[in-house]
Protein backbone atom coordinates (compact mmCIF):
# COMPACT_ATOMS: atom_id res chain seq x y z
CA UNK A 1 0.00 0.00 0.00
CA UNK A 2 1.33 3.41 -0.84
CA UNK A 3 0.32 6.59 0.88
CA UNK A 4 1.72 10.04 0.58
CA UNK A 5 1.98 11.52 4.09
CA UNK A 6 3.12 14.91 2.91
CA UNK A 7 -0.21 15.55 1.19
CA UNK A 8 -2.19 15.58 4.47
CA UNK A 9 -2.91 19.30 4.61
CA UNK A 10 -4.80 19.20 7.91
CA UNK A 11 -2.35 16.97 9.72
CA UNK A 12 -0.62 19.07 12.43
CA UNK A 13 2.43 16.84 12.30
CA UNK A 14 2.76 17.44 8.57
CA UNK A 15 2.56 21.19 9.21
CA UNK A 16 5.15 20.90 11.99
CA UNK A 17 7.51 18.96 9.74
CA UNK A 18 7.10 21.43 6.89
CA UNK A 19 7.94 24.25 9.29
CA UNK A 20 11.00 22.32 10.45
CA UNK A 21 12.09 21.78 6.86
CA UNK A 22 12.59 25.47 6.19
CA UNK A 23 16.31 25.67 5.57
CA UNK A 24 17.93 27.46 8.54
CA UNK A 25 20.94 28.28 6.37
CA UNK A 26 18.76 30.15 3.90
CA UNK A 27 17.77 32.53 6.70
CA UNK A 28 21.39 33.04 7.66
CA UNK A 29 21.95 34.30 4.08
CA UNK A 30 24.20 31.44 3.10
CA UNK A 31 23.58 30.69 -0.55
CA UNK A 32 23.78 27.14 -1.84
CA UNK A 33 27.17 26.13 -3.22
CA UNK A 34 27.42 26.56 -6.99
CA UNK A 35 26.14 23.39 -8.75
CA UNK A 36 28.46 23.99 -11.72
CA UNK A 37 31.48 23.91 -9.41
CA UNK A 38 30.27 20.63 -7.92
CA UNK A 39 29.78 19.24 -11.41
CA UNK A 40 33.34 20.24 -12.38
CA UNK A 41 34.79 18.77 -9.18
CA UNK A 42 33.04 15.48 -9.88
CA UNK A 43 34.34 15.44 -13.46
CA UNK A 44 37.88 16.18 -12.26
CA UNK A 45 37.72 13.44 -9.61
CA UNK A 46 36.42 10.97 -12.19
CA UNK A 47 39.27 11.81 -14.55
CA UNK A 48 41.80 11.51 -11.75
CA UNK A 49 40.48 8.07 -10.79
CA UNK A 50 40.53 6.95 -14.44
CA UNK A 51 44.13 8.17 -14.83
CA UNK A 52 45.19 6.38 -11.64
CA UNK A 53 43.52 3.18 -12.83
CA UNK A 54 45.34 3.28 -16.15
CA UNK A 55 48.66 3.97 -14.42
CA UNK A 56 48.28 1.00 -12.07
CA UNK A 57 49.79 -1.48 -14.58
CA UNK A 58 52.68 0.84 -15.29
CA UNK A 59 53.37 1.17 -11.54
CA UNK A 60 53.31 -2.61 -11.09
CA UNK A 61 55.79 -3.00 -13.91
CA UNK A 62 57.95 -0.25 -12.43
CA UNK A 63 58.04 -2.01 -9.04
CA UNK A 64 58.96 -5.29 -10.70
CA UNK A 65 61.79 -3.57 -12.58
CA UNK A 66 63.06 -2.03 -9.33
CA UNK A 67 63.14 -5.43 -7.63
CA UNK A 68 65.00 -6.93 -10.59
CA UNK A 69 67.41 -3.98 -10.64
CA UNK A 70 68.01 -4.43 -6.89
CA UNK A 71 68.71 -8.12 -7.38
CA UNK A 72 71.14 -7.41 -10.24
CA UNK A 73 72.81 -4.70 -8.16
CA UNK A 74 73.29 -7.06 -5.22
CA UNK A 75 74.88 -9.63 -7.57
CA UNK A 76 77.15 -6.90 -8.86
CA UNK A 77 77.94 -5.85 -5.28
CA UNK A 78 79.09 -9.35 -4.45
CA UNK A 79 81.22 -9.39 -7.58
CA UNK A 80 82.78 -6.00 -6.76
CA UNK A 81 83.33 -6.95 -3.14
CA UNK A 82 85.30 -10.05 -4.12
CA UNK A 83 88.00 -7.78 -5.50
CA UNK A 84 87.88 -5.41 -2.53
CA UNK A 85 89.96 -5.45 0.60
CA UNK A 86 88.94 -3.03 3.32
CA UNK A 87 91.95 -2.08 5.46
CA UNK A 88 89.74 -1.18 8.45
CA UNK A 89 88.77 -4.85 8.66
CA UNK A 90 92.40 -5.97 8.57
CA UNK A 91 91.91 -8.10 11.66
CA UNK A 92 89.60 -10.42 9.63
CA UNK A 93 90.86 -13.14 7.34
CA UNK A 94 90.44 -12.65 3.57
CA UNK A 95 87.06 -14.52 3.29
CA UNK A 96 85.59 -12.61 6.23
CA UNK A 97 86.94 -9.33 4.83
CA UNK A 98 85.26 -10.03 1.45
CA UNK A 99 81.96 -10.84 3.17
CA UNK A 100 82.18 -7.62 5.17
CA UNK A 101 83.04 -5.63 2.03
CA UNK A 102 80.08 -7.22 0.22
CA UNK A 103 77.81 -6.26 3.12
CA UNK A 104 79.04 -2.66 3.12
CA UNK A 105 78.54 -2.29 -0.66
CA UNK A 106 75.07 -3.87 -0.41
CA UNK A 107 74.12 -1.50 2.45
CA UNK A 108 75.30 1.51 0.43
CA UNK A 109 73.21 0.32 -2.56
CA UNK A 110 70.14 -0.17 -0.35
CA UNK A 111 70.62 3.30 1.14
CA UNK A 112 70.92 4.83 -2.34
CA UNK A 113 67.80 2.95 -3.49
CA UNK A 114 65.84 4.11 -0.42
CA UNK A 115 66.83 7.72 -0.94
CA UNK A 116 66.12 7.59 -4.68
CA UNK A 117 62.78 5.76 -4.45
CA UNK A 118 60.63 8.77 -3.42
CA UNK A 119 62.32 10.84 -6.12
CA UNK A 120 61.38 8.27 -8.78
CA UNK A 121 57.86 7.87 -7.54
CA UNK A 122 57.23 11.63 -7.75
CA UNK A 123 57.07 11.53 -11.54
Amino acid at each position, binding site marked *: *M*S*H*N*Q*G*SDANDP*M*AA*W*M*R*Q*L*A*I*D*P*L*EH*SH*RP*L*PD*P*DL*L*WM*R*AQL*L*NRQVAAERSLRVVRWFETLLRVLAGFAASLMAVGIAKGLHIPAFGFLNSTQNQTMASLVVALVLVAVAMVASPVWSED
Partner: protein
Amino acid sequence: MNQTAFREFYLKAAPALRSYISRNCGSYDLAEDVMQEAFLRFLRTAPTGMEEPAMKGYLYRTADSLLVDHWRREKRSKRWSLEMIFRKEQTPDRNPSDDMAEAFCELKPQQRSLLWLAYVEGFDHREIAEAAGVKENSVKVLLFRARKALAAVLEGK
Protein backbone atom coordinates in the same frame (compact mmCIF):
# COMPACT_ATOMS: atom_id res chain seq x y z
CA MET B 1 22.81 13.08 -16.47
CA ASN B 2 24.13 16.23 -18.13
CA GLN B 3 25.18 19.46 -16.44
CA THR B 4 21.91 21.29 -17.06
CA ALA B 5 19.81 18.42 -15.71
CA PHE B 6 22.06 18.21 -12.69
CA ARG B 7 21.73 21.93 -12.01
CA GLU B 8 17.93 21.66 -12.15
CA PHE B 9 17.89 18.65 -9.85
CA TYR B 10 20.37 20.28 -7.47
CA LEU B 11 18.32 23.45 -7.11
CA LYS B 12 15.27 21.33 -6.35
CA ALA B 13 16.87 18.87 -3.92
CA ALA B 14 19.66 20.79 -2.20
CA PRO B 15 17.73 23.16 0.13
CA ALA B 16 15.73 20.35 1.78
CA LEU B 17 18.79 18.10 1.96
CA ARG B 18 20.90 20.85 3.56
CA SER B 19 18.13 21.55 6.02
CA TYR B 20 17.79 17.84 6.84
CA ILE B 21 21.53 17.50 7.49
CA SER B 22 21.76 20.64 9.60
CA ARG B 23 18.71 19.52 11.64
CA ASN B 24 20.47 16.21 12.18
CA CYS B 25 23.96 17.37 13.01
CA GLY B 26 23.33 20.79 14.52
CA SER B 27 26.18 22.42 12.65
CA TYR B 28 25.75 24.63 9.60
CA ASP B 29 29.34 24.21 8.41
CA LEU B 30 29.21 20.46 8.69
CA ALA B 31 25.82 20.41 6.96
CA GLU B 32 27.25 22.26 3.99
CA ASP B 33 30.29 19.96 3.77
CA VAL B 34 28.20 16.81 4.03
CA MET B 35 25.71 18.07 1.45
CA GLN B 36 28.47 18.82 -1.06
CA GLU B 37 30.11 15.46 -0.46
CA ALA B 38 26.73 13.72 -0.90
CA PHE B 39 26.18 15.43 -4.26
CA LEU B 40 29.74 14.62 -5.35
CA ARG B 41 29.22 10.94 -4.54
CA PHE B 42 25.86 11.05 -6.28
CA LEU B 43 27.48 12.44 -9.44
CA ARG B 44 30.31 9.94 -9.35
CA THR B 45 28.65 6.71 -8.28
CA ALA B 46 24.86 6.88 -8.65
CA PRO B 47 23.43 4.51 -11.27
CA THR B 48 22.15 6.30 -14.37
CA GLY B 49 18.50 6.49 -15.40
CA MET B 50 17.01 6.86 -11.92
CA GLU B 51 13.70 8.63 -11.30
CA GLU B 52 13.73 11.80 -9.21
CA PRO B 53 12.50 10.20 -5.94
CA ALA B 54 15.13 7.48 -6.30
CA MET B 55 17.82 10.12 -6.86
CA LYS B 56 16.68 11.98 -3.76
CA GLY B 57 16.60 8.72 -1.81
CA TYR B 58 20.15 8.01 -2.90
CA LEU B 59 21.23 11.46 -1.68
CA TYR B 60 19.56 11.03 1.72
CA ARG B 61 21.12 7.58 2.18
CA THR B 62 24.54 8.96 1.27
CA ALA B 63 24.13 11.93 3.61
CA ASP B 64 23.09 9.62 6.45
CA SER B 65 26.10 7.38 5.99
CA LEU B 66 28.43 10.39 5.72
CA LEU B 67 27.05 11.71 9.01
CA VAL B 68 27.55 8.33 10.68
CA ASP B 69 31.14 8.25 9.38
CA HIS B 70 31.69 11.75 10.71
CA TRP B 71 30.36 10.90 14.18
CA ARG B 72 32.45 7.74 14.34
CA ARG B 73 35.60 9.66 13.37
CA GLU B 74 34.81 12.37 15.89
CA LYS B 75 34.20 9.83 18.66
CA ARG B 76 37.49 8.10 17.87
CA SER B 77 39.49 11.33 17.74
CA LYS B 78 37.89 12.58 20.97
CA ARG B 79 38.82 9.37 22.71
CA TRP B 80 42.49 9.70 21.81
CA SER B 81 42.91 13.43 21.80
CA LEU B 82 44.78 15.14 24.64
CA GLU B 83 43.00 18.34 23.65
CA MET B 84 39.83 16.94 25.20
CA ILE B 85 41.41 17.02 28.63
CA PHE B 86 42.36 20.67 28.42
CA ARG B 87 39.78 22.37 26.26
CA LYS B 88 36.51 23.88 27.40
CA GLU B 89 33.20 22.45 26.22
CA GLN B 90 32.36 23.87 22.78
CA THR B 91 28.87 24.87 21.84
CA PRO B 92 27.68 23.90 18.36
CA ASP B 93 26.94 26.74 15.92
CA ARG B 94 23.19 26.22 15.95
CA ASN B 95 20.53 28.51 17.17
CA PRO B 96 19.90 27.49 20.81
CA SER B 97 16.34 28.78 20.67
CA ASP B 98 15.48 26.32 17.95
CA ASP B 99 13.11 24.11 19.95
CA MET B 100 11.85 22.35 16.85
CA ALA B 101 15.31 21.19 15.90
CA GLU B 102 15.97 20.07 19.46
CA ALA B 103 12.76 18.07 19.55
CA PHE B 104 13.60 16.50 16.21
CA CYS B 105 17.08 15.56 17.43
CA GLU B 106 15.60 13.61 20.34
CA LEU B 107 14.27 11.03 17.88
CA LYS B 108 16.29 8.05 16.66
CA PRO B 109 18.16 8.66 13.37
CA GLN B 110 15.91 6.25 11.48
CA GLN B 111 12.77 7.93 12.82
CA ARG B 112 14.09 11.33 11.79
CA SER B 113 14.85 10.07 8.34
CA LEU B 114 11.44 8.38 7.90
CA LEU B 115 9.48 11.42 9.05
CA TRP B 116 11.50 13.71 6.80
CA LEU B 117 11.05 11.55 3.73
CA ALA B 118 7.32 11.18 4.39
CA TYR B 119 6.40 14.74 5.31
CA VAL B 120 9.02 16.97 3.73
CA GLU B 121 9.82 15.08 0.55
CA GLY B 122 6.30 13.67 0.30
CA PHE B 123 7.53 10.18 -0.58
CA ASP B 124 5.09 7.26 -0.67
CA HIS B 125 5.79 4.06 1.25
CA ARG B 126 7.62 2.36 -1.63
CA GLU B 127 9.93 5.35 -2.11
CA ILE B 128 10.55 5.65 1.62
CA ALA B 129 11.42 1.95 1.81
CA GLU B 130 13.88 2.35 -1.03
CA ALA B 131 15.47 5.48 0.39
CA ALA B 132 15.66 4.35 4.01
CA GLY B 133 16.70 0.78 3.24
CA VAL B 134 13.75 -0.88 5.01
CA LYS B 135 11.04 -3.26 3.79
CA GLU B 136 8.01 -1.61 2.22
CA ASN B 137 5.67 -3.57 4.50
CA SER B 138 7.30 -2.23 7.63
CA VAL B 139 7.27 1.45 6.59
CA LYS B 140 3.72 2.00 7.88
CA VAL B 141 4.55 0.61 11.34
CA LEU B 142 7.88 2.42 11.55
CA LEU B 143 6.25 5.69 10.53
CA PHE B 144 3.51 5.20 13.11
CA ARG B 145 6.13 4.66 15.81
CA ALA B 146 8.13 7.67 14.63
CA ARG B 147 5.02 9.87 14.75
CA LYS B 148 4.24 8.58 18.22
CA ALA B 149 7.80 9.26 19.38
CA LEU B 150 7.72 12.79 18.00
CA ALA B 151 4.32 13.44 19.60
CA ALA B 152 5.71 12.24 22.93
CA VAL B 153 8.74 14.53 22.59
CA LEU B 154 6.55 17.50 21.70
CA GLU B 155 4.22 16.84 24.61
CA GLY B 156 7.19 16.75 26.94
CA LYS B 157 8.43 20.17 25.73
